[in-house]
């Protein structure tokens, strides 16, 4: 991203509204930034003025007995997690930290987690950021402060704008405050590791585990090309200690047909899933392009097999096969043609999550939409931001 000349760091929502009001009058686009650790996510953009939420901080409400937390958008995720940890709670969707992937510095913010719908391995069992974001305040492109949702976990009052803004990468409004619902942090974690499965067999193994009554909360597969040794399939159980012990036994029995197994206990399990969450197995070398591909698990092995006919790369699976991280050479179209050709047959979509700015500027970073969905997308953008002030072109050229 081209750095802006001017950076605003508002401390209140009304300051945000004033900055947007000025941008509106001057017809000057704004780059919306949290901690700046995810600048590489989305299409690079040019905006003369940056609006940073880094000074818009602080937890505004935390009720452990209600499992709900509210915070201003610029609050560091680390501060949220520290507060939750003290009460034995967590953000259930396990948001990824992009710093290793992008080699970026700074503090990831809770507002960016909402703006980019950032989840992690537990998405498979507990849902994504968008499933836990129950309330939002944001300033729209008319410089109006808007509220949607609230602080209660069941709320169907009016249109759910929370979902639209979540994952809109700052293109619909400047988020000023977020409210998430929470879960208790599991007292114990353990991981069952199955050795030596090929991709298709690994997905079958993960499907069997995720289709079991044992509430597997993480299911990932690293092919041999990634581990450097034999392929490994990882299945996580999180619960009270007695349940973890019982469920690990039961799962091991259920998966007997899939061959040899080992286990990761609590601490190694925690560090394995943290690293996997942050795409640790593929972040180096830093020069590769990295795709994030979403597809139905049973079709994922066909997809990687089809892609690798024409494109050299390495990959691993999360979400029981439903999420593929694919690393390839950052040259030409970074494999966009091969990947999207394969997707046409399997369904799903691909996002170019890491590539140099000059390539992301000319490639479709997000999967192109059908004309009917693109029309709705443009309409939604205009309904929030009629002058196109926020993060212009971040998701699609001209939106």
């Amino acid at each position, binding site marked *: 991203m081209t750095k802006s000349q001017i950076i605003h760091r508002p401390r209140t929502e009304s300051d945000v509204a004033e900055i947007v009001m000025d941008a509106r009058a001057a017809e000057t686009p704004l780059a919306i930034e949290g901690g700046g650790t995810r600048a590489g996510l989305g299409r690079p953009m040019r905006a003369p003025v940056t609006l940073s939420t880094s000074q818009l901080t602080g937890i505004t409400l935390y009720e452990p*007995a*209600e*499992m709900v937390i509210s915070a201003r958008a610029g609050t560091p995720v680390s501060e949220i997690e520290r507060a939750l940890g003290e009460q*034995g709670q967590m953000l259930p969707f396990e948001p990824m930290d992009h710093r290793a992937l992008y080699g970026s510095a700074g503090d990831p913010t809770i507002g960016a987690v909402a703006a980019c719908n950032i989840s992690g391995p537990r*998405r498979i069992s507990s*849902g994504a950021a*968008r*499933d836990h974001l129950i309330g939002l305040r944001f300033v729209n492109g008319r410089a*109006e*402060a*808007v509220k*949607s949702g*609230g*602080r*209660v*976990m*069941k*709320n*169907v*009052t*009016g*249109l*759910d*704008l*929370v*979902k*639209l803004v*979540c*994952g809109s990468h700052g293109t619909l409004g400047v988020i000023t405050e977020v409210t998430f619902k929470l*879960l*208790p942090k599991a*007292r114990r974690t353990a991981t069952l590791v199955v050795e030596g499965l090929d991709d298709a067999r690994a997905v079958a193994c993960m*499907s069997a585990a*995720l*289709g*079991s*009554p044992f509430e597997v909360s993480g299911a990932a597969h690293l092919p041999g090309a990634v581990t450097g040794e034999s392929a490994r399939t990882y299945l996580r159980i999180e619960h*009270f200690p*007695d*349940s973890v012990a*019982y469920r690990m036994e039961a799962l091991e029995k259920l998966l007997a047909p899939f061959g040899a197994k080992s286990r990761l206990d609590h601490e190694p399990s925690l560090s394995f899933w943290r690293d996997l969450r942050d795409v640790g197995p593929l972040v180096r070398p830093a020069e590769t392009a990295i795709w994030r591909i*979403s*597809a*139905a*698990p*049973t079709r994922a092995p066909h997809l990687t097999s089809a892609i690798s006919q024409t494109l050299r790369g390495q990959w691993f699976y999360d*979400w029981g096969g*439903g999420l593929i991280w694919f690393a390839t050479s950052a040259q030409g179209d970074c494999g966009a043609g091969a990947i999207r050709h394969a997707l046409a047959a399997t*369904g799903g*979509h691909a996002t170019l999550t890491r590539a140099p700015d000059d390539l992301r500027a000319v490639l479709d970073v997000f999967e192109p*939409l*059908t004309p*009917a*969905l693109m029309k709705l*997308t443009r309409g*939604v953008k*205009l*309904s*929030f931001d009629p002058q196109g002030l926020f993060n212009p072109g971040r*998701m699609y050229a001209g939106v």
Partner: protein
Amino acid sequence: MAGTLTIGYINGYNQGSPVSQIAFPVPDSSILARRDEIVAGLARLVAPESLVTTEDERRAFETDALTAYRRLPLAVVLPRSTEEVSAVLAYLHEAGVKVVARGAGTSLAGGAIPQEDAVVVGVSKLNKILDVSYENRVARVQAGVTNLGITDAIMADGFFYAPDPSSQLACTIAGNIGMNSGGAHCLKHGVTTNHILGVRMVLIDGTVVDVGGDHLDANGYDLLGVIVGSEGQLGVVTEATVRILRAAEGARPVLFGFDSSEAAGACVADIIGNGIVPVAMEFMDKLAIEITEAFAHAGYPLDAAAMLIIEVEGSPAEMEAQLSRIVEIAKKHGVRTVRESQSALEAALIWKGRKSAFGATGRVADYICMDGTVPTSKLSYVLQRTDEIVKSYGLRVANVFHAGDGNMHPLIMYNVNDPAEQAKAEEAGNDILKLCVEVGGCLTGEHGVGIEKRDLMHFQFTPIDLDQQMRVRAVFDPGWLLNPAKVFPLDHRFAA
């Protein structure tokens, strides 16, 4: 089980003309005058058995579970395919005719009540389960499939569809998507929006769009997120891809009787505070216990002032362990009785009692059911104020609700044949909903706004908040033809 359906018949067709507090728009006389032409146009698009035109037959579609209000629609179409829905909407759009989408008509908020100048497009003939994948844990269904129909089809293999509104025997997935329905088990599993991965939807001009699919995250803006809960204002959903889950090894509801609502409420907060999230925690007050026990004979503790139904799940040993943790906590809050279900039959009876609470109440009185959600820390205060409010109108209230998530369901009892009493009941209901908003909650947790709470939206949202929602709505339906008099106050106009 089908409490909401039952009351439609019990409260149904016996009243005179109640005082209507909720306004309907004046029908467009030019549309009414063109009725024959419009019906003829529809007849060219669908088979005769898919078109309902006689007054007698249209009567069946004039209301939903908010039976105090009814309007006879211009005509009713029950298409058999997405293509037919598309042709019908394209035609009505061209003709400038309003459209009210309908599932099974079990809305408690009047979400499916038509108006005289609108055509009802019902999805009841779209009732096939198209595909089930246990490997991918998804099912693709036509939108007129019932909620329970999905679970019934996959239960033998140990799977289920999680959201479980009390009307699940009758209500459709289309209606669940429209209202973002919840149920007793959302504390653990979440609501409809957490379980829909994709929809096929027909826009008002007949365009068919596929939003989402069988993968887990959105491509681009989360349009699916705003479609779920949009109360039929954005399009007509004809197919859905839903998540299905593997059932726990076992599940057991346990009854906890307390001497006061405060003690029961404090117990709920303490359970969560101890890191335990049971799959369900349901609350009933004394009157609700009496009414449902007389109906279901589920063994509810009649001597308790408040009761919790807490469901534990897992292996027998896990259920035992979780239950003993919960009992320890409940003891600290002076629990009077703890009654475990001893058999599958007893467990079913306990849930039957809870899920028929509305229907059972309908046997003793007419009622309106409120649906506000409040922060759980405010539960005792809200219960006490609810009681005071309803008493001040000279009426009675029974409380049944989802305690874990603060979703209240006060049932205000009245006599539908007494217009003054109906007006009082509605005023009491409005006061309660305002109270819910005042303490930090919302007007509706799972039933939707419909017409019932439409005019209260100003209490929860500023004009700016409503403007933003209406602008999004207008992206999908610029001519405001889809379920036009719902959700947004009729007097609220936004600057486009």
